[in-house]
């Protein structure tokens, strides 16, 4: 009995030190300081890397690595956003677990820190679950899918049956390295020969015999492809190119050049069926369709300053018997079946509307968190303030 408690207390001693560190205010201060450094350098880095690369490297990572130009190695120089967020979260929970004692005086502090915990968890969930895409609609056009602006996919479309298409979409991550892709419904395999994350396509001149194309079939035969650095600008996107070799039971059918810049599908036949190949933005299909009726772009009188953008769309949902007009404008989105459609941009001389489509099941969390923190802060500080005034008046 005695030895047992001794053992327990030894075990507790063993954990006590790390727990004390984990729950200390010192750790909080260090984490906050590191977070400031991370955010500061993450902001500066956006000038050269662009906002999307910085998000991945600085904020959605465990460590920020640095490598001298040209060197093949890299060292971690700062903890990344995920690591810092996790440590702060543990620190917060540990600190409250260690010192938790409910009293009226501490209600504000507890409330606000609970809000911060919720906020951190909410951001983690958003990072894991949110899906962002875009819907580009020309006036009069109908679509039932949105597209990921920075992700591509390779679509293999079986168009043999005139009544319907059968599509196999291969995500970008399978295309980035040389590999062989097999899919049970396809009578052939796809071999990735070369993948260019950003590229420039030029029509080959008649006399240019210099380097023959890697493509043996399709329009790619007459196109010269060169790799260019990935873009860092927010308003530009990479144009992916990929050389794909198709091989059936009977032998190789040839190599095609597929690229974002080649929007028309390229077709071939195999085992008596007709297939089309195309590289396109990754698609997210919806259970409903939107038609752009018209797009309006108001400007202030006598200027080019935009006053308002809005899209009038027709929402058709056969499953739920919805068939109605909706107006989507700046700061006034359409929310439907877990998706939110925001007016994001326009193109094509005000004839095309671009909608941002977001699905985020954790959307509500920041709202609750903000309310809790604000309430906690107000409670705590007004207690300080009233205490102070009372003391002065006494």
């Amino acid at each position, binding site marked *: 009995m005695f030895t047992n408690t001794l053992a327990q207390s030894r075990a507790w001693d063993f954990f006590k030190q790390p727990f004390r560190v984990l729950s*200390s*205010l*010192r750790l*909080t*201060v260090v984490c*906050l*300081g590191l*977070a*400031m450094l991370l*955010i*500061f350098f*993450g*902001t*500066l880095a*956006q*000038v050269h890397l662009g*906002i999307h690369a*910085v*998000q991945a490297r*600085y*904020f959605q990572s465990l460590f920020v690595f640095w490598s001298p130009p040209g060197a093949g190695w890299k060292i971690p120089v700062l903890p990344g956003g995920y690591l810092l967020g996790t440590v702060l979260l543990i620190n917060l929970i540990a600190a409250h677990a260690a010192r938790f004692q409910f009293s009226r005086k501490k209600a504000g502090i507890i409330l606000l820190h609970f809000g911060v915990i919720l*906020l951190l968890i909410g*951001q983690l969930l958003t990072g894991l679950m*949110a899906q*962002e895409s875009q819907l580009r609609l020309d006036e009069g056009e109908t679509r039932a899918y949105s597209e990921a602006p920075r992700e591509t996919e390779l679509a293999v479309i079986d168009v043999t049956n005139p009544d319907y298409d059968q599509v196999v979409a291969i995500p970008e991550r399978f295309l980035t390295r040389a590999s062989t892709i097999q899919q049970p419904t396809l009578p052939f395999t796809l071999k990735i020969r070369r993948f260019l994350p950003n590229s420039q396509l030029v029509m080959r001149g008649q006399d240019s015999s210099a380097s023959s194309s890697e493509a043996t079939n399709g329009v790619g035969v007459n196109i010269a492809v060169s790799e260019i650095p990935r873009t860092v600008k*927010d308003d530009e996107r990479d144009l992916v190119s990929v050389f794909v070799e198709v091989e059936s039971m009977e032998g190789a059918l040839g190599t095609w050049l597929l690229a974002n810049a080649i929007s028309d599908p390229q077709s071939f036949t195999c085992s008596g069926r007709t297939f089309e190949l195309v590289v396109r933005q990754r698609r997210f299909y919806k259970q409903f369709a939107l038609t752009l009726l018209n797009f309006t772009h108001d*400007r*202030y*009188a*006598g*200027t080019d*300053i*935009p*006053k*308002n*953008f809005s899209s009038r769309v027709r929402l058709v949902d056969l499953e739920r018997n919805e068939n109605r007009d909706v107006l989507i404008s*700046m*700061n006034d*989105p359409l929310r439907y079946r877990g998706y*939110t459609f*925001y007016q*994001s941009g326009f193109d094509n001389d005000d004839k095309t509307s671009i909608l*941002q*489509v*977001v699905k*985020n099941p954790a*959307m509500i969390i*920041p*709202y609750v*968190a*903000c309310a809790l*923190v*604000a309430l906690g*802060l*107000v409670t705590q*500080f007004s207690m*300080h*303030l009233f205490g*102070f005034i009372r003391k*002065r008046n006494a």
Partner: protein
Amino acid sequence: MKKRGPIFTWVVIAASAVFVLAPLFPHDPESGFHLREFGRLPVLLNGRIKPLDTVARNSLLIIHGRQTIHLQHGATLSAIEWLTELLMNPGQADEREIFVIRNPDTLAALGWGVEAGKYFSFRQLFPHLQEIEQQAELAQKVDGQLRSPFQRDIVKLYERVLLYHRLQNSIEIPGTDDFKSDIEELVKTIHPSTTPMESGISPDALQRYAFLAETGYFFPIPPVPPQTDPQQWRKMGESILSFVTAGNLHPAVKAYAAMASAYAAGDPETFNAALSDYGGWLQEHFAARAGKTHVESIFNTLQPFYSAMVIYVLIFILACASWLVWEQRLGAYAYSLLIFAFIVHSCGLFTRMYLEGRPPVTNLYSSAVFIGWAAVFLGIVLERFYRNGIGSATASMVGFITLLIAHHLSMDGDTMEMMRAVLDTNGWLATHVVCVTLGYASTFLAGFLALTYILRGSLTSSLNQETARSLARMVYGIVCFATLFSFVGTILGGIWADQSWGRFWGWDPKENGALLIVLWNAMILHARWGGLVKQRGLMVMAVFGNIVTSWSWFGVNMLGIGLHSYGFMESAFPWLIGFCVSQLALMALGSLPLHLWRSPVEMQRPTSVRTVAATS
């Protein structure tokens, strides 16, 4: 003694009131033209209906760098006097040396040496217009941030010349002898027709009015009553052309033509009569708008922010002096003046809100005005509690500096711009933007309070322990306030982004900047609670808050990226760096060993974690 105090206080305030209101009672210009009334005429520019006086001031500010022109022998030319001359007697205006060229490379490119001086008239620039345009076109092909100083200067010069040229062509074509009889002639001779050539107008006249329609800068012709839609305002040339095609000459065209001819002929009576007729017509059809334009023109004349700035300097001097002599009396003057200056500052702020129909902060300029206003308000609260001159001194300093910054930001032209579509929502402007800006204001105030502590403590022996303790309490309280508002403001920004773009947080530079302020304030509080810093440590940390806030307020805009960027402010960059360096130096001063300080602050009584937590 005691009785004289309040009377003197009222004398000081009355004197300040006279100073503030004096511009309303100017000596009438000898010319006899009612130019003040002329300056109140409404025109449309950049989507907003504003008095001509505003157009005159902003244009002169862009072209000349000031709102008045200083002539020889101490005489001055007000903005509206200048604009009237430019519109109606351009020959004389072209002789005014109002273009400032300081860059020696620009001077050299135009064939001048430094000895040519820095002031040039349009007449002098005229032979070089082609060269200026070519050089500017070359420079404009270079990305804004990569331009050399010469390229930036020549582009600016080109923009100023272009603005001058467009202004000049807003009422009549320069060189018109008698605009009124031209218009009367037009009315007599033509038969309005949808094809202008068949109306009987001479090809030459048609070309001139088309040029006027294309080149004119502002829209002086209001909608035809009963229409009031701002889209219906017209340029002079457009209105004349629409008469040619559709008939019905707009009364405003006749009025402006009559004024132009009378002004050119030096005939004040006719000018004033035409002006007053037109004023009557406006009153009859646009009475609702006339109120706002009138208020704006008074606001322009009074320049409340300028007056407040001057009074803040006085308050600062009084408050600092109160630490040396006559503590009670000077302190009381400073405090009452602070309240007076705050009222003046508030009048300016609320007038702007009324004119714009917007919450207080809509752009960088108004954020500066609001930061100063909020800091002064908090300073008054502190002074109300402590009565030791610290609240007055610090608040007046922040008020002065922010209004000075606002003054420099106003050099780009109209500070009441229309809001772009994304930002066009009063609800979020009133909550998110105001909260974040209050966060800036209070972080700055805490930082400047800490500066007072460090400067007084290290350089003078005037900081006794009681004052030091009260300063520590002030800084702590203001940091709490700053944490609350910067946190709530930042999160509200996230929610706005979620509502408008579908993402709560995007690591945009401006968002990051706001988050840095939250984190820094949270860090100060946690370091204080954890006993990691004591009184002086708290002060040094609060000073660093100035750097964090100025980075968030200005630094991120200089990155020139992100949704929130206002454009590259090359001229402010060295100032920002200088400010940050000075703050670091003061932090070093604050960290010196205590025996090098002249005031014996922070004596041996150790403040443990528990007592701090319990007392704070």
